């Protein structure tokens, strides 16, 4: 079967409808919501704050701790609450995707905690999580050299790359390589690159090019959300 049309009628390089909102959690130091189609991620940042346990403290610079989880109602089959093998892995790769953008030299012995909750999952949750977390970190006033943008690509055999796959496409029966990529758009540095599936070298190269273009579109959405919050202050009387 030839994959010539996407199930939801999108073009191959078309993202799902995106929405971003900054400052959704009042009690956090920074927070944001990021929606990609039906996938919704909420991120809260607390800190920089005092770090316990103390053996984790680094007197040279602050550390980043990420905590990613799916809410139990976010998936079709109820997810048992609490950390799992999968959520620990995603927390770790999220942390490593965000850290290159941050500068925590000013906060020795302290920690910046990032909590990411997925309230609705339709593939690409770690990418939505990274997008939301990067907004939340900016909202918390953490020094960062760039926002981090992430997108999940699908690599089909026969030189086809589709952007921002949804659950239906992820489960495509003839096989699709699910490739989440996070990029710092200004420098073009890749901070996250995973792949679940099979793809040739050329296909991956093509995917990386596509990801760079796509992340610029995601960044526009993020920038708009941040400016809406901080620029909006001026108009509120």
């Amino acid at each position, binding site marked *: 079967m030839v994959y010539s049309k996407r199930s939801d009628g999108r073009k191959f390089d078309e993202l799902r409808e995106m929405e971003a909102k900054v400052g959704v959690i009042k009690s956090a130091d920074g927070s944001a919501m990021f929606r990609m189609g039906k996938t919704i991620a909420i991120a809260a940042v607390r800190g920089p704050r005092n770090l316990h346990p103390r053996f984790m403290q680094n007197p040279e610079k602050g550390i980043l701790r990420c905590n990613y989880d799916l809410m139990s109602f976010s998936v079709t089959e109820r997810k048992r609450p609490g950390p799992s093998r999968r959520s620990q892995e995603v927390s770790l790769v999220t942390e490593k995707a965000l850290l290159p953008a941050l500068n925590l030299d000013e906060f020795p012995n*302290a920690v910046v905690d990032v909590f990411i909750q997925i309230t609705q999952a339709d593939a690409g949750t770690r990418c939505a999580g990274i997008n939301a977390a990067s907004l939340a970190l900016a909202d918390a006033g953490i020094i960062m*050299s760039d926002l981090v943008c992430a997108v999940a690509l699908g690599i089909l055999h026969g030189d086809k790359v589709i952007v921002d796959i949804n659950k239906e496409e992820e489960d495509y029966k003839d096989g699709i390589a699910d490739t989440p990529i996070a990029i710092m758009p200004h420098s073009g540095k890749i901070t996250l690159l995973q792949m679940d599936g099979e793809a040739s070298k050329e296909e991956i190269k093509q995917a990386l090019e596509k990801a760079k273009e796509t992340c610029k579109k995601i960044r526009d959405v993020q920038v708009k959300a941040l400016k809406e919050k901080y620029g909006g202050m001026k108009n509120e009387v």
Partner: protein
Amino acid sequence: MGELKVKDKEIVVPGELLADGMDYLPSTGTYRDENSILSFQVGLINIDGRVIKVIPLTGKYNPKRNDTIIGEVVNITMNGWIVDIGGPYSAMLTLKDASSSFIERGADLSQFYDYGDIIASQIVNVTKTKLIDLSMRGPGLNKLKGGRIIDVTSSKVPRIIGRQGSMIHMIKDSAKCRVIVGQNGKVWISGDNMQDENKAAEAIMMIENEPQAEGLTEKVKNFLESK
């Protein structure tokens, strides 16, 4: 030839391009990446000649030497007090700097400052690992009794104080309150009655919510007069 990409007082986000070329100089809140200057934080652009600066709009207090701050005593140790000054680090007030009078060895330290006491204090030293020393020696540095504390973003404190204290003097006079603004974004307000305190608090929150507004002083003035 260098080219400026943003206007003065514009809001920028991390990674946003501020200027191209070597003609401009990056100051706080910005960094240089090869030929361009980019922003480090969410903030307001401030262009002073060739120097580009980003004034942050959010973020925790970063302690600096000689800042007057308002803190809460959270612990008493053998040789001083531990003070919460907001932000990730607590500060130390030692016996030596705690009072202009002599404190005898073995004295009951809670007689001077007890748990939960609010003090106006000055930072005398900050080390690289963020150990902070406070001092109570100096004019206006003492325990604050009564009143209330409101929290603002520490980077907006200069706006609350205004040029040569113009803004804060106006609020004090108009609301008939005593107001002390700590550099750490804690503002202490004490008045004869609740209405006065509310008035001062609302005026300060107005500055907190729209620090970049044009003619802010006028706005606050109109607000204070209308109450």
